[in-house]
């Protein structure tokens, strides 16, 4: 039996009161924003407010770690299965928003076409696929990770081991990408060497999840969701009320903002002369007219997210099967709440840009908005080779440099097409562009760093849970053995996070590439195996092994052999072609081999997973 400590009891009580926790967190963030505004109004430099923000995050992480600390392997991996669906929904929504690339979404909408739609709808569809096909059955089985369920279903440690390795590789690649984004965004605000930022960010993740595991991860990620929701929806709602008198920007932009944007663009097109041009560069964005490529990207993201560890990781800690559906319901609703405001944010930013940039003259420095020169020498976190703001192709250093880059005629008017911003600049500079107080920029900046950290939290904790049961298929009834295994898990998680932070800081020319391969591994290998394990009784052990090995070979071939990578779809990431090829190979080999071999269904486990009136066969660690 589990001996519950006082802190675990307090933790369980808090986990079951997610709404109260979210309200308290929201109030704390609003109070912090008001304090930052007061600090600014005293005339103190903005760097003081930035320093306040930076030094707030680490103590909060330490507090979460201390409050959730445990020496129980059960507590660390599944929190005694006491997690409320609301809490899981809040935490999963934070991870889902991070994978959508919330900071660059407004820039993608600016870029045009259906690329932004792929990134908004794909992950959401993935959550639906994961919930309908995998999550409740994973919870009903009683397993603490996907690999444990697969190992039990096929009565084979090797099958579980291969899937565990694939899941960990996928999680690590996504974590690497998330760390690169977090370090890139943090370097916008902190004048510190990259190595120091990497250490600080890795430390923040580790103090959150090493002591308390799933409780620490969920509590921190719920806090991140609240911070992001306030940072994004607050200013957009403010503008919506001030400009249109309508307090729900998620539903109002189609009628109000888009009409204004269209009027201005119609006039610019009528005037002609190259006044109107694309203002945003999005690395790797799909061409505006290529809807088929956007659809392929949407499916790629949906398949990858459906079996991603940040989504399935919290599932074993939820109270029951119905609560798993409910937590996904909260995840989707909470995601829609924030995602729905992003087109409105893009619309207001576009109006702000037109207000700031139309009709300005190189001969009159007062007409240039000051925010335009405040980014250089900063680079985009999504593409470190790109300056955040450029004028006539040169980084926006000052007016003289801009004038030189644009031809040197000081009497000329600047054209809208002369200005180019990186995708994340639209969101990060939203406060300045829209003429809001600078504390808004501070909150959005904080959210842009915290979101990838939430994703890293969830991935590292889920990988730790996989490792906790990777080497053994049976329960650890001995508390001493459970404690030593928890120690091993913590060492693994520390190495996992440190390596991801190091790679994210120093080996990420394009942070999205690692993320794409993480999604490809999850969608091309883990998802089909999970679906067949749960839904196809005839799926055999040998078929699972062969399918996973061939699928991994296909992914590796696309990743490392240029001759194979040449067979990829033009204009889309190589990882996407690799994922679809791997998906086809996994299903094909699994079906052919299973049909050739005699049936070996593990009927008791399948019944325990799928029938309503059966108890779980697998158990979480007793200690």
């Amino acid at each position, binding site marked *: 039996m*589990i001996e519950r400590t006082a802190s675990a009891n307090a933790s*369980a009580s808090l986990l079951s009161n997610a709404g109260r926790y979210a309200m308290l967190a929201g109030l704390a963030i609003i109070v912090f924003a008001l304090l930052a505004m007061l600090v600014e109004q005293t005339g103190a430099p903005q760097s003081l407010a930035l320093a306040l923000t930076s030094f707030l995050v680490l103590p909060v992480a330490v507090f979460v770690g201390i409050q959730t600390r445990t020496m129980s392997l*059960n507590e660390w991996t*599944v929190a*005694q*299965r*006491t997690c409320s*669906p609301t809490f899981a929904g809040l935490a999963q929504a934070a991870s889902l928003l991070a994978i959508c690339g919330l900071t660059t979404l407004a820039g993608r*909408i*600016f*870029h*045009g*076409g*259906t690329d*932004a*739609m792929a990134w908004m*709808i794909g992950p*959401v*569809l993935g*959550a*639906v696929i994961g*919930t*309908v096909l995998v999550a*409740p059955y994973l919870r009903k089985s*009683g397993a603490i990770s996907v690999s444990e369920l697969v190992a039990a279903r096929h009565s084979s440690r090797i099958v579980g081991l291969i899937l565990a390795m694939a899941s960990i590789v996928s999680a690590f690649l996504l974590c690497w990408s998330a760390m690169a984004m977090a370090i890139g965004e943090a370097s916008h605000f902190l004048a510190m060497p990259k190595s120091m930022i990497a250490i600080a960010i890795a430390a923040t993740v580790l103090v959150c999840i090493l002591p308390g595991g799933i409780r620490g991860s969920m509590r921190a990620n719920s806090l991140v969701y609240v911070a992001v929701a306030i940072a994004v929806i607050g200013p957009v709602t403010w503008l919506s009320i001030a400009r249109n008198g309508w307090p729900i920007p*998620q*539903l109002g*932009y*189609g009628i*109000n903002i*888009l*009409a204004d*944007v*269209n009027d201005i663009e119609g006039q610019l097109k009528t005037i002609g002369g190259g006044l109107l041009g694309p203002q945003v560069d999005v690395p790797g964005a799909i061409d*505006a007219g290529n809807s088929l490529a956007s659809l392929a990207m949407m499916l790629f993201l949906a398949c990858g997210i459906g079996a991603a560890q940040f989504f399935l990781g919290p599932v074993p800690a939820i*109270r*029951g*099967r*119905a*609560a*798993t*559906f*409910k937590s*996904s*319901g909260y*995840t*989707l*609703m909470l*995601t*829609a709440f924030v*995602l*729905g405001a992003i*087109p409105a944010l*893009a*619309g207001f930013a*576009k109006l702000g840009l037109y207000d700031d940039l139309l009709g300005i003259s190189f001969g009159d420095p007062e007409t240039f908005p000051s925010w335009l020169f405040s980014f250089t020498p900063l680079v985009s976190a999504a593409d470190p080779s790109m300056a955040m703001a450029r004028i006539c192709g040169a980084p926006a250093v000052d007016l003289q440099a801009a004038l030189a880059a644009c031809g040197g005629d000081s009497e000329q008017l600047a054209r809208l097409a002369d200005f180019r911003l990186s995708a994340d600049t639209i969101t990060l500079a939203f406060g300045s562009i829209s003429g809001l107080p600078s504390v808004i920029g501070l909150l959005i900046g904080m959210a842009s760093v915290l979101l990838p950290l939430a994703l890293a939290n969830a991935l590292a904790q889920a990988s730790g849970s996989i490792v906790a049961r990777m080497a053994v298929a049976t329960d650890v009834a001995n508390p001493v053995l459970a404690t030593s295994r928890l120690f091993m898990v913590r060492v693994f998680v520390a190495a996992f996070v440190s390596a991801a932070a190091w790679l994210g800081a120093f080996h990420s020319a394009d942070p999205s590439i690692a993320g794409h391969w993480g999604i490809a591994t999850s969608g091309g290998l883990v998802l089909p195996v999970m679906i067949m394990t749960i839904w196809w009784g005839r799926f055999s052990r040998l078929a699972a092994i062969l399918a996973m090995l061939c699928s991994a070979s296909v992914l590796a071939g696309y990743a490392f052999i240029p001759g194979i990578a040449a067979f990829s779809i033009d204009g889309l990431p190589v990882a996407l072609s690799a994922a679809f090829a791997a998906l086809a190979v996994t299903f094909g080999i699994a079906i052919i081999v299973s049909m050739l071999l005699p049936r070996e269904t593990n009927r008791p486990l399948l019944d325990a997973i799928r029938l*309503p*009136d059966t*108890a779980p066969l697998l158990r*979480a660690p007793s200690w």
Partner: protein
Amino acid sequence: MQVTLAAISVAAGLCVAAMFTGNSAASALAGIPADMLLAALLIPVAGGLLMFAMAGWQARTSRRNNISDTDIDA
């Protein structure tokens, strides 16, 4: 069953509303059809409602079979 049907009806209604509202929206942003922008909002809402409906169905099935729907270790 009633909860499930109600939630599915609301979800379907939202999708239809998105199509009509999108078509009648004043304009589009940066070349993206307005109905797609609305779909980006309404797909997760509809998905969320579907999940709540399935949770209700699951809880009802458990009650009908006289089994506990929660399975905690504590």
